[in-house]
């Protein structure tokens, strides 16, 4: 399972590209931002979270520094 953890990196591409047409609107405002801008910020934050999960699952990161 850990071997395939890097496949999770596809998720931000789905969020920012495939699902983008759904987000192309102004309302509702969330955190003071128009919905489209909020959507992009959300995926930037989720990208970091996903990268952190992949880093933790990645067997290459076990052990000492290369």
């Amino acid at each position, binding site marked *: 399972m850990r071997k395939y953890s*890097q496949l999770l*990196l596809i998720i*931000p*591409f789905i969020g*920012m*590209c495939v699902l*983008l*047409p759904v987000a*192309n*609107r*102004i309302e509702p*405002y969330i955190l*003071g*931002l*128009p919905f*489209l*801008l909020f959507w*992009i*910020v959300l*995926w*930037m*934050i989720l*990208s*970091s979270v*996903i*990268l*952190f999960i*992949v*880093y933790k699952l*990645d067997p*290459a*990161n076990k052990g000492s*520094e*290369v």
Partner: protein
Amino acid sequence: MNSALIIIFFVALVALYLGIRATRGKEMNVNEFAVGNKGFGTLFVFLLIAGEVYTTFTFLGGSGWAYSKGAAAYYVPSYICLAYVLSYWIVPKIWRFSNKHQVISQPQYFMKNYNSKALGVVVAFIGLIALIPYIVIQLKGLGIIVSEASYGTISPLMASTIGAIIVTIYVTISGIHGSAWNAVLKDAMILFVIVFLGIYIPYHYFGGIKPLFEAIQTVRPEALTFASEGLSKSWFISTIVLNAFGFYLLPQSFTVVLSAKSERALKKNAITLPLYTILILFAFFIGFSAIIQVPGLQGADGDLSLLRLTMQTFDPWFVGIVGGAGLLTALVPVSVMVMSGAVGLMTGFYKLIKPNSSDRQQLTVAKLFVLFIILIAYVFSIIGGDALAILNIMSYGLITQLVPALIFGFFNTKFMNAYGAIAGIITGVSIVLFNSITSFKLVNMFPNIPSVINDINIGFVAIAVNIFIGVSVSLITYIFVARESSKVIEELVK
């Protein structure tokens, strides 16, 4: 002499001092000059990569695009974020190969990966023509920022000249070390300036972020979503994917990867950098505020929206701090670009002519190439007109034509060899150049295609043709070589 000018000069002197001081305690050789002896940890790699994001574009282009093109400006943080996501998979492979084969430049990477000097020359040439417009844009941006922030006391040309001299001095003395130390100062200043302005201006003029966007929704609602044609959803998606693949292939980003001391430093950066990129939003807030507060800026003048609004809102001493931060956002990226371009030319061309040259000779030649590149960029920044805009648009289109060769290179397959890579790159580059010169769109060839397809970034089409040609040529040459070698073996057996 006004207080803004004093502060800008002070920042310039500090940058020069830090750039020169960075070499202290280090014996400068080619490896140290180009990639810091592959010794940069997580923090310096972070600052240098982030330095490629927070350039004069953040000051001028980010707010300027929000001002003039609205939501289309969102493509910038989006592609950078996806580039970091991709980097987790791509960058460690590049670093591993480079570490094993003592690679110090991008042309050398492709040369050794495909065992082809010709491919190295092609990559060095493409890297150079993609880099020059970037350096020119930074020098021009520096001129505009310093000139505006000094209330016209310093002319844009004078500011560009001073900037070019500072960069030349500290790059030739310290190489990448000078850039790294200045990146520390730059990020501290820009962090303060952009976040402060991005919060203060919307609250000062509108009472908050939401009221700002509600005001925009009233006067220009189309600025908050993508257009149905032109800068549309399909333009946005194709552009962010294309640029995400191209980001780490820009010679200056590639060089930073090579300077890391471990894979782990690069992976840790991939995690944190998307969050850091969110700061570009604050530049957008300023650009959106300017739509209402500084109306009427036409065309390229939209890029002045941040500076005009700052000068309208604050005293000269604060404008000086903004100008100083703007100066650094040009100096740091330019220094990395010039240095990586110079080392690329040295390894791509000089080492081919003089393969047995000493380390000292190579270092001297690299420094001469620094002067050569900065001089070309400086001349272009003075005389460049519309041609420059064309060059800038095609920079990413050109550099992404190296993507197929890079990706296939990871797998060492018969589907891509040096012949195929060169044929594919030349075909892709030709399409990008043709598009840039003629503004060719798909609709010119297929009049009835919907705008969803017509708006797709032409670089995408070029990549598809690049892969087709590259794989075809590789397979043909593979079969041809296999046939020839079997004939030789048969003759030897006889």
